[in-house]
């Protein structure tokens, strides 16, 4: 096993374990922190793909900006630790119908994933050998503002809509 593969499994392990920890324990603050650790694993994977710009932007935007806000909200709202009582049969997610639908959905998703992955040509585990020749920031910017101009602008409008929507929903109703 080459050192690249070793690093790949290391980073992949960090992000998978981090994600599992997010949903696997009951303290919301720890969930937020585990998600940050998971982002660091992803960022390492981007570095292995020789895309340092994407790796750093991943840290700045997700781990640095968005998760700070998450942490802020969790602390300010003082979200309580989930107690044992919430995990008994009375919880809405544990009623028969949600459980049945959830089971069907998860089986569907796993089937789809296996189907999609088995059809992807040249699937190998590890780091892709074909590396993008040009991953410089200048090249990325040029592609983003020429070939993907429409997608780029549409995305920004989408984010604007989401922001306006959030403000409208959270605004106090005038009586």
């Amino acid at each position, binding site marked *: 096993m080459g050192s690249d593969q070793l690093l790949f499994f290391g980073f992949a392990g960090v992000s998978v374990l981090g994600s599992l920890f997010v949903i696997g324990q009951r303290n919301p*603050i720890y969930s937020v922190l585990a998600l940050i650790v998971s982002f660091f694993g992803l960022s390492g994977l981007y570095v292995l793909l020789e895309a340092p710009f994407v790796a750093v932007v991943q840290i700045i935007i997700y781990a*640095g900006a968005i998760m*700070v806000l998450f*942490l802020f909200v969790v602390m300010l709202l003082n979200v309580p630790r989930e107690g044992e009582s919430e995990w008994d049969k009375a919880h809405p997610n544990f009623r028969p119908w949600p459980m049945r639908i959830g089971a069907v959905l998860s089986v569907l998703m796993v089937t789809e994933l296996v189907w999609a992955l088995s059809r992807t040509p040249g699937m190998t585990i590890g780091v892709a050998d074909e590396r993008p020749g040009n991953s410089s920031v200048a090249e990325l910017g040029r592609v983003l503002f020429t070939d993907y101009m429409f997608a780029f602008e549409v995305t920004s409008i989408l984010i604007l809509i989401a922001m306006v929507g959030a403000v409208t929903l959270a605004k106090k109703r005038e009586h």
Partner: protein
Amino acid sequence: MGSLLDYLTAPTTIFYLAVTMTVFLALQISAAVMVYAERKVAAFMQQRYGPYLVGPKGLLQPIADIVKLVFKEELKPKAADTLLFAAAPVISAVAAFTAFAPVPFGASTTFFGLLPEPVPLMVADVNVGVLVIFAVTSMGVYGIVLAGWASNSKYSLLGGLRSSAQMISYELAYGMALATIVMLAGSLSLREIVDTQSGYWFGFIPKWYVFINPISFMIFATAGVAETNRAPFDFPEAEQELVAGYHTEYSSMRFALFFLAEYINMVTVAAVSVNLFLGGWHGPFIPEAYGWIWFLIKLSVLCFGYLWLRWTLPRFRYDQLMAFGWKLLLPLATINLLVSAAGVLYFGL
């Protein structure tokens, strides 16, 4: 395994290890020097003597402080979150040390011919260095926020929340000022940004970005002070309101780590300003190979500026801080960015 052994024993690798260790030690020493300088400067400005008993002119005072901190009792509030309470100061210190990695502090050198090819004098020559510093600095805020939360004390929590709000607000202006210089230089690597600042106009004005874009420098310096939680922006630890802010419940070495991180962050922000705006290691009279002397001189001047600010200006009020950041600094930085972009397009800098 042969290739790994070759790599580990190559002169370049050993040189990088040596540079890394040097930076690591230098940052710790610089924190000690800054603590001493701060007390002396404060004393001078308030017409006192400052520390003068331990060693000549009180020079050994930082060492006495460290010994005292090491031997102090480690206290932890009963209701504190054990894991995060211990992790928070470590996160702060690690982020502070890491942020210095992509900062160059001297011209490329072969180290008296010992190395096969010239190597830049820095820990890691990353081609997105500016962004790495930005990313690591934004990790530092977690140390403060978590310290505030994990202490389970209202003063600590308020300090931590204030700090995160402040850092998020000022990071925007900070980033805009950075982007302006990145645009002018056409590179994200601090080494290349410094290289574009060599040479002179009319034979005597150095081609530093502080002369091309002084507004950007002002914004960067202001936001830098806010980012490092220094007076007049030291809200996270406003002692009249919050006892000591996020580190109220900390003592002994854990407190020392926060202190260390704060002073190292100051040095890092000053070093980044030197590289971005003041031409890094370029300067007259000293040959290029000894450029790190210029770097240290500029760094010291900026660090003194920090101390000067702290002991001259009173603290803002919190709403003033927010209004200043969002309503003045950010629009100014945005306009500056746009004007600079137009300038780059027009003059083709």
